[in-house]
């Protein structure tokens, strides 16, 4: 995760909207617990709402969406594994504990990365995440 120069200097209103995409995903995570899909739906709706926005806003909405999308798969598997342990004969194994530990580490890392990015983006800095930043560059293009 590092600050990189953007193709243009974003304005104040753009920085606010881009930062909001991360903040909104944080609120949605907290409000949607323990269901892992709520924050993805919220981020997706926010992305759709800003699809006509400026390039900077769209770029950060896309990065927020992609990060939430990866979390969905990891969290969903953990969630339903936990449900099967609670409501069926499934036993708690070392594999399960290791997986849940990884899920927690990943979620906490994502949570703090999102807070950090929201703060920096609000100041107009362009923060690209490892992997997700590159992926976003491929998906999100400036309007011609």
């Amino acid at each position, binding site marked *: 995760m590092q600050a990189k120069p953007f193709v243009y200097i974003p*304005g*104040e*209103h753009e920085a606010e*909207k881009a930062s*909001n*995409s991360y*903040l*909104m995903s944080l*609120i*949605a995570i907290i*409000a*949607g617990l323990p269901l892992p899909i*709520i924050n993805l*739906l*919220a981020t997706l*709706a*926010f992305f759709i*709402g*800003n699809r006509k926005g400026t390039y900077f806003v769209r770029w950060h909405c896309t990065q927020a969406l992609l990060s939430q999308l990866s979390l969905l798969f990891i969290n969903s598997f953990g969630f339903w594994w936990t449900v099967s342990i609670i409501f069926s004969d499934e036993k708690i194994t070392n594999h399960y504990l290791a997986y849940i530990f990884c899920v927690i580490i990943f979620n906490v890392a994502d949570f703090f990365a999102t807070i950090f990015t929201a703060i920096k983006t609000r100041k107009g800095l362009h923060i690209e995440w490892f992997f997700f930043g590159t992926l976003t560059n491929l998906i999100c293009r400036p309007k011609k």
Partner: protein
Amino acid sequence: MEAQKVDMFLMSNGKFFETHQLAPIRDRLLQLDESKWPIIQTLQFKDPTTILIVSLLAGSLGIDRFLIGDTGLGVGKLITCGGLGVWTIIDWFMIMGNTREKNMNALMQVLM
């Protein structure tokens, strides 16, 4: 229109628009005919902060959407109980921008 009148308008109504829209609005108003000034003066803009407060308190009923004139979205929000809470959260972050957009559209209708 006179620069003094335009600046006075922007000083009292600047908060209703996005910051990047203020310069184009000023240019457009300066070119405008003096006869349109009474119409512009009587325009009623929605305050984004008030709408945000409404969204925080009654967002799940869609009141915020009704207030800015999105009746269809308001009804949708009301029926779905604020999109089961998700839509309400999204609107907390989007409603101020939407309100400023609506204000801009209202002003543009007069300026065109």
